[in-house]
């Protein structure tokens, strides 16, 4: 299964570089926020690939924590875009 997993990891890296292109190019702040959110979701998939590749199940703990933190960060950025304070 290892060559297949290498291909999957390469594909996810390609997607991550496309997200990085959008983060760098912009042109507005919401574009960058969307790309950061998608990059976090791709990292969750990459953690699954690493879990199968190494056979260590703690990578799935990293995936769950990464999904949680990515969601919180995206919501905070969206509230910032909307022009509201964090305690509203």
């Amino acid at each position, binding site marked *: 299964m290892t060559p297949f997993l290498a291909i999957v990891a390469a594909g996810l890296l390609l997607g991550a570089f496309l997200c990085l292109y959008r983060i760098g190019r912009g042109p507005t702040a919401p574009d960058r*926020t*969307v790309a950061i959110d998608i990059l976090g979701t791709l990292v969750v998939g990459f953690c699954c690939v690493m879990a199968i590749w190494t056979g260590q199940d703690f990578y*799935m703990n990293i995936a769950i924590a990464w999904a949680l933190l990515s969601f919180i960060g995206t919501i905070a950025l969206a509230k910032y*875009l909307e022009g509201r304070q964090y305690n509203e």
Partner: protein
Amino acid sequence: MSDLAAEILIAVGLAFDVFGCIGLVRLPDVYNRVQAATKCVTLGTCLILAGTAVYDITGAMSIKAALCAVFLLLTSPVAAHAIARGAYKSGVRLWEGSVIDRYGAEVHPAGPPAERIEPAAQPEQPLAAGRESHE
């Protein structure tokens, strides 16, 4: 047999992920990008998680992958909706080829604002009005 099923699920998920990222680069404005990328990448990552669960069906990875997939399916649409709403409120214009703007007709019945809403230029009034209208 279980390996083959896991490989098929992961391959389909990878295809959805890559197509979502291509949509993120190719589509013309932020609203198109958020819908293409969020839907494709959420489905693709959930398929990769399902493949992980099938690969290690009796182990600890399976239940963690199922938990993570449920969490992603719950949070990803919420995040995308918040980003799109924040983008509209912060004054990002639609692509000129867009045909309808129902949310804009609801928020600004007299027509869209002439330019970007600058928070420093209009300090209190638009914020208070927006808060009342959405609560």
